[in-house]
């Protein structure tokens, strides 16, 4: 029996107090907290194995290299891919920028089309805007249905423009919507496009298999899935990565260097210029071990249960408008809402005074908020340690907002 209250005990930070109250951490969508095992793994790496990788023939260097490569294999297994298709980056944003610049600059030209959706995080929109400016291509944005899902009719319409690349998120960070990524990928491939999936909000909660999805690129961050900050993954099909120019250049990604030209290492090293975050990779490996021990099916079941509970309990609070689908089957990770008559930041400050940490603002989805005509919203987001009691405390703290603002 999965018990989030027991799981919570593995996370040291969740024992602390904020403003004299027990911390209720409901901002895991921004970043998750880390279990002791992950913190220990990073510390032990620095205490026992730290050295630079792929350089020099000494024992520590070999151990560090070994750990980095073991982590790569672990990540590959976690998302159903090959180790040589796993590129270590800092985070999802960097992974998407890598594709935008390394693939986009060589493959997009004037008049070409990139398709994205209205629910994308800025990280999956701004890089495409930038690359379209530099290449003369254009970004077409797919609209949403009233309940916050991708409008599939509009999607099919945009695919008729024969885009070169289609980029969409698997789970919306602001609406919680789970997109039908497999179907969307198939349709995009049928129209001749490559597909990039932003998996930042999916990997912490859902079992992801990139081979099953069938996409060409999949990007995610470690820090939202219990691993440290500063380690992220770009997965790409080997045949696609192989044909791409490098993104960042310098040490670690070269084969031979002459004064007037250089040759590149094989994929994935070709995309890993400079000293990598080995400790982060070790932490990520430990986080995957931890998640697998909890059981990914249990993780998703718990996610669904907590989202369902949040939808029900928040649904009873007056003056709240919940954003996104009402059905937890097609939702994951978070529930965002608008508090009618009170600005999201005022709500956040009052909740914080009660020890409740939530996100307020537009959650890096400004176009989505404009589209929904919502100035700013409040997001409660969850992870493996979130309990129904956390939601109860959120609802209780919302009572204080009512008291202060009289609405």
């Amino acid at each position, binding site marked *: 029996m999965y018990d989030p209250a027991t799981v919570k005990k593995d996370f040291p930070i969740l024992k602390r107090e904020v403003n004299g109250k027990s911390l209720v951490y409901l901002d895991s969508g921004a970043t998750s907290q880390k279990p002791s095992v992950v913190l220990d793994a990073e510390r032990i790496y620095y205490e026992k194995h730290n050295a630079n990788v792929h350089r020099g023939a000494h024992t520590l260097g070999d151990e560090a290299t070994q750990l980095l490569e073991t982590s790569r294999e672990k990540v590959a297994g976690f998302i159903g891919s090959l180790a040589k298709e796993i590129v270590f980056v800092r985070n999802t944003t960097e992974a998407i920028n890598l594709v935008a610049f390394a693939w986009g600059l060589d493959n997009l030209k004037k008049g070409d089309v990139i398709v994205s959706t209205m629910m994308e995080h800025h990280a999956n929109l701004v890089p495409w805007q930038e690359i379209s400016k530099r290449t003369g291509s254009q970004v077409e944005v797919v609209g949403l249905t009233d309940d916050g899902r991708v409008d599939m009719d509009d999607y099919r319409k945009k695919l008729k423009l024969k885009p070169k690349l289609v980029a969409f998120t698997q789970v919306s960070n602001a609406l919680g919507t789970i997109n039908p990524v497999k179907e969307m990928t198939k349709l995009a491939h049928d129209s001749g496009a490559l597909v990039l999936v932003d998996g930042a909000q999916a990997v912490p909660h859902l079992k992801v298999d990139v081979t099953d999805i069938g996409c060409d690129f999949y990007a995610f961050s470690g820090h939202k899935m219990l691993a440290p900050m500063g380690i992220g993954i770009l997965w790409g099909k080997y045949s696609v990565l192989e044909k791409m120019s490098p993104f960042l250049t310098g040490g670690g990604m070269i084969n031979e260097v002459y004064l007037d030209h250089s040759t590149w290492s094989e994929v994935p090293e070709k995309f890993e210029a400079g000293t990598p975050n080995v400790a982060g990779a070790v932490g990520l490996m430990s986080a995957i071990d931890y998640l697998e021990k909890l059981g990914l099916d249990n993780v998703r079941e718990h996610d669904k249960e907590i989202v369902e509970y949040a939808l029900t309990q928040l649904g009873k609070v007056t003056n709240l408008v919940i954003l996104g689908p009402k059905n937890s089957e097609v939702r994951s990770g978070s529930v965002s809402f608008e508090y009618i008559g009170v*600005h999201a930041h005022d709500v956040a*400050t009052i909740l*914080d*005074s009660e020890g409740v940490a939530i996100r307020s*603002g537009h959650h890096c989805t400004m176009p989505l908020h404009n589209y929904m005509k919502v100035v700013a919203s409040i997001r409660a987001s969850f992870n493996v340690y979130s309990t129904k009691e956390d939601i109860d405390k959120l609802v209780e703290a919302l009572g204080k907002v009512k008291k202060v603002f009289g609405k």
Partner: protein
Amino acid sequence: MDLYREDVMDHYEHPRNQGELLGDDVIAEKESNASCGDMVQFYLKIKDGIIVEVKWKGIGCAITTAASSKFSEYLTGKNLEKIKSMSEDEMVQDGVGFEVNPGRMKCLMLPVKVVKKIL
């Protein structure tokens, strides 16, 4: 600290000096906090080096609204040169007159930023 103390809430619920000013002797600017969607516009009417009238309009949270309201009251009747010589910190301390936690400083600063921009 109690951010939502009585006088702050009073200025939020009943903002002073809201509106617009027109004329050759009026200087105006607007400023926004993109991350909140907040926007504030200030109008200062100047006569013989004195700020004789202040109006402002905008959309924002309770902190931005109360800060704009309180600051507009403070500015009215003040010597323009004196206000020009004030630092942002002094404007917050003397002009806005209430404190917030670091996470909300941007909200509090919005009217100060606008007036700095005008001057």
